[in-house]
């Protein structure tokens, strides 16, 4: 049997971008649930300080993260050298989802991985904007 996914809650403490009523309602549900969980004040701040705690939070198998946009969360962890496993991570977005949706997904036993997929194929060399830009810059 696959173990129940871990829960990680981000409080987005240093900005008012996650609606207060949503994050409070989600945290309340977690506190009422009697479930074990990890909670962080602000994933952005941890990423900026390259906090090694992000490694411990990324490792250890399936995880559901209540935070913001999956693309932002993916690269915040990456910036701290703590890549999340794409097949084992589900990010719930408290900026756009309701507290009820986020809570229901957090407590649902199934994991729905939703990190953005990586690059499928690099652009052909001749069309690569990288090369164009390089040319521009080196010719400057």
């Amino acid at each position, binding site marked *: 049997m696959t173990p129940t996914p871990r829960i990680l809650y981000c409080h987005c403490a*240093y900005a008012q971008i996650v609606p207060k009523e949503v994050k409070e309602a989600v945290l309340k549900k977690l506190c009422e649930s009697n479930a074990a969980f990890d909670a962080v004040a602000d994933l952005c701040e941890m990423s900026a300080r390259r906090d090694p*705690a992000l490694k411990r939070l990324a490792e250890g198998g399936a995880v559901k993260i209540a935070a913001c946009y999956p693309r932002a969360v993916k690269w915040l962890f990456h910036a701290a050298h703590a890549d999340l496993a794409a097949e084992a991570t589900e990010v719930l977005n408290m900026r756009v989802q309701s507290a009820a949706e986020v809570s229901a997904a957090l407590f649902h036993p199934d994991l729905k991985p939703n990190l953005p997929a990586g690059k499928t194929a690099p652009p052909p060399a001749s069309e690569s904007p990288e090369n164009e830009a390089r040319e521009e*810059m080196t010719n400057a």
Partner: protein
Amino acid sequence: MSLKDQTTLRIVLYEGSGAQPLSTGDRFTAVSTLLEKGFALTCVGGAGRVAGADGTSLLVLGRFDGGRTPQVEDANGAVPIRFQDIDGIDTHGVMDLVESVRAEAKAAKHGEWKPWFPVIDYDRCTNCMQCLSFCLFGVYGVDEQQHIQVQNNDNCKTNCPACSRVCPEAAIMFPKYKAGPINGDAVSDADLQREKMKVDISALLGGDIYSLLRERSEKAKSRFSKERDSSKALQERQKCLTKLAQAGDIPPEVLMSLPSPEEIVRRAEEAKAKAQAALLAANRTS
């Protein structure tokens, strides 16, 4: 001390065997207050898995039976663990205790800096170095493989998303920005077209901001030398900066904090040279 050199403290709210559970209300108050103060914590008591231990100092809070805190230590001596009985202590008291342990452990004091910095989406990034060339504050750099990197997050100017406008691939996010795709929302084709158009604006803000400022400064200087009216020169600069702020939704206070026009030119040249060197090195290795 740089942001990246500070240690942190992990708090564990323990309600398992050998400890009494908190009421739901007390648990919520304690958890939300600790989070507001910037701490990372783990709630253990009910079912479920949590992140494993690493070398981070642990402070374990609980209402321990008979007020007896467990005598536990890490066999390897790698993890400093401290237990604290919080039975009968109100939230303020708990916070004071946590704060004194934090200070003693010389762990980071959170909340002194708003985490505002660029985050690169490497699925989109083409390593073109436009961002490195644009930023005047040394936020960007390259790694050993000459890949673009955000190196000095805390040099970034709070609430300024200017470099995300420069990126032709919409690869630069500011997760705390108000709107997509800069906030991390998915990038649509329409966004990409818009972002590409914004490069023109950024040309104004990037390349031309310097010449514009220089021009304004020259004019202001010549007027200054004639009129000896410093407030007029300043007014002139303010007018120019306000215009730029309106064009690119850059906070006026950020523009006002820019260094002198001469210094801007010097830094811009330095950044451009850094970007060119990185591109040349990347070309050599590819």
